[in-house]
């Protein structure tokens, strides 16, 4: 995308510089072209903790996807003779209160956490980006109302707002998508707006405008692609917080409902037995910690790679 813009910039400049000097033809080898994403990729590769984070996320994703094929136990089958058993050869993570295999439940729970992490974070990022770019680009009343709405959403402690939305919509997995998307868009919109304001003044946008390019085309072809690196960072950073919020909501009983093996719910069910069977609550918590930590390392690495000035 960025190369395209540079090329078209050159094309536009040639007629102006026609003061007797023939435009030189510069040969560019394909390998010499530095793209932003190539740069970012190289910086990200050098960041060891970010790579570890990426590997952990990929590993958990593969495990979650292949769960039904590799697990010997079903996450929903109860066995009341086998309640709260400690980890053993047959049940690596032990069993829960209803004698269900905890490992199967934790691995199936990874599916929920990954979906919850990705979908609401994606929706929130999309909504936030579109509103943010509209706010920054159009200005005036549009800007005023969108930003006041963002102010109001950001004024709420996010867990409380999510709780109220869940109370209203009813506690189930699908409504968590809605609640977390409503809660999450505002901070993205602020970031995208401020970047749009800066980009709006750049020459290439001015040039596009002078050429009579439609406003919508300017937004989607010129402004949004240039916001993309930052949007990527915001998106990566909002995944772990969505996972944490889902876990919190489910733990409080207003998120996923039993027998769904959501990690927050697993910890909540295990808390009754924290003294007699601590693994039932501790192991799903470790799973949350590992996944969230991996995403956080990844997000940090991506941010450092995209914006080296942010690093320290």
């Amino acid at each position, binding site marked *: 995308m960025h190369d395209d813009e540079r090329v078209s910039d050159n094309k536009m400049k040639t007629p102006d510089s026609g003061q007797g000097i023939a435009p030189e033809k510069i040969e560019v080898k394909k390998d010499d072209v530095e793209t932003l994403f190539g740069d970012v990729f190289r910086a990200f590769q050098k960041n060891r903790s970010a790579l570890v984070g990426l590997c952990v996320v990929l590993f958990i994703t593969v495990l979650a996807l292949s769960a039904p094929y590799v697990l010997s136990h079903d996450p929903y089958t109860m066995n009341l003779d086998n309640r709260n058993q400690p980890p053993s050869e047959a049940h690596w993570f032990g069993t829960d209160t209803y004698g269900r295999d905890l490992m199967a439940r934790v691995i199936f729970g990874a599916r929920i956490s990954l979906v919850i992490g990705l979908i609401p974070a994606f929706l929130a990022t999309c909504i936030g980006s579109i509103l943010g770019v509209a706010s920054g680009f159009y200005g005036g009343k549009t800007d005023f109302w969108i930003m006041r709405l963002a102010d109001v959403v950001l004024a709420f402690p996010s867990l*409380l707002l999510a709780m109220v939305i869940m*109370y209203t*919509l009813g506690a189930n997995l699908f409504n968590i998508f809605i609640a977390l998307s409503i809660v999450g868009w505002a901070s993205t919109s602020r970031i995208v707006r401020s970047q749009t304001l800066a980009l709006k003044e750049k020459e290439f946008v001015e040039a596009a405008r002078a050429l009579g390019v439609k406003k919508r085309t300017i937004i989607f072809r010129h402004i949004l692609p240039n916001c993309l690196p930052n949007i990527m960072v915001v998106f990566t950073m909002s995944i772990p917080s969505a996972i944490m919020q889902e876990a919190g909501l489910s733990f409080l009983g207003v998120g996923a409902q039993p027998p769904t093996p959501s990690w927050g719910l697993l910890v909540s069910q295990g808390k009754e037995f924290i003294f007699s069977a601590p693994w039932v609550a501790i192991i799903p918590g470790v799973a949350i*910690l590992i996944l969230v930590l991996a995403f956080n390392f990844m997000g940090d690495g991506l941010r450092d790679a995209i914006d080296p000035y942010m690093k320290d």
Partner: protein
Amino acid sequence: MKRFILKRLLIAVPVLIGITFVIFILLNVVPGDPVALMMGERMSPEIIERVRHQMHLDDPWPVRYVRFLAGAVQGDLGESYKLQRPVADLIVGAFPVTLKLALAAALVAWLIGIPAGILSAVKQYSLTDNFFMGLALTGVSMPVFWTALLFQYVFALKLGWLPVAGFYSAKHLIMPALVLGWSSSGLIARLTRSSLLDVMRHDYIRTARAKGLRNVPVILRHALKNALLPVVTVMALQIAFLLSGSVITESIFNIPGVGRIAVGAIQNRDMPLLQGAVLFTTVLVILGNLAADVLYGWLDPRIRYE
């Protein structure tokens, strides 16, 4: 300074109105019928209708919103369905507990976060730095409810040092404060580090060094003063955040604060109580943000005159 404060106050007013509107719409208009929600589906429609009328719930919603707003301004948040007591009394009674917990947790967060941040910045890219920053990220990534259970298991059951739950003495406050403070110390540490690193690049630090000052006085006397400015602001924000973050902590440790009221109200489908608790906490958070803004402007004249 006065103008600065006044400006900030004026910005806060529409936000305050906005949050009351959002809370009202979410809890009164969207669910359709709060009474049916409260009484369950088996109740006969006649009774539901009568209760609706008694509670003035059959008025159009703009009328009800204005009534709600007028009441809230005068400190009247309605009556709890379940407990049959004024919501405002219940919340005001529970608030000191939440405040104590939030302040204690903030203290924990600063005591851990600031020294860790300073050490990391001073020894940038060293093993110490990596260790503390890894720890900070871990702290941020640990779900509060899980940390709480872990602490209960270790400090109450295995070591027997602290009581498991409840709220009767200062000793009962230690574990919840540690849990809640730990979760935000990571943020403080990261912020202190980045802010200190930023300040260390300035010319006046180079001057101080050129004068022959040692590292420790340069950092403690010259750099830290400026580096802690954003940290102070975040501290004020953190208290607001901890006030609301105590929802989970309070319900695990069975602490009778505002957060537990909110969770209990959800379980009992007690709409006025939930509405009151959320409104109260959110207003507190907004006031906290306002205080942070004013504090920042007071500490740093550059902000004030922008």
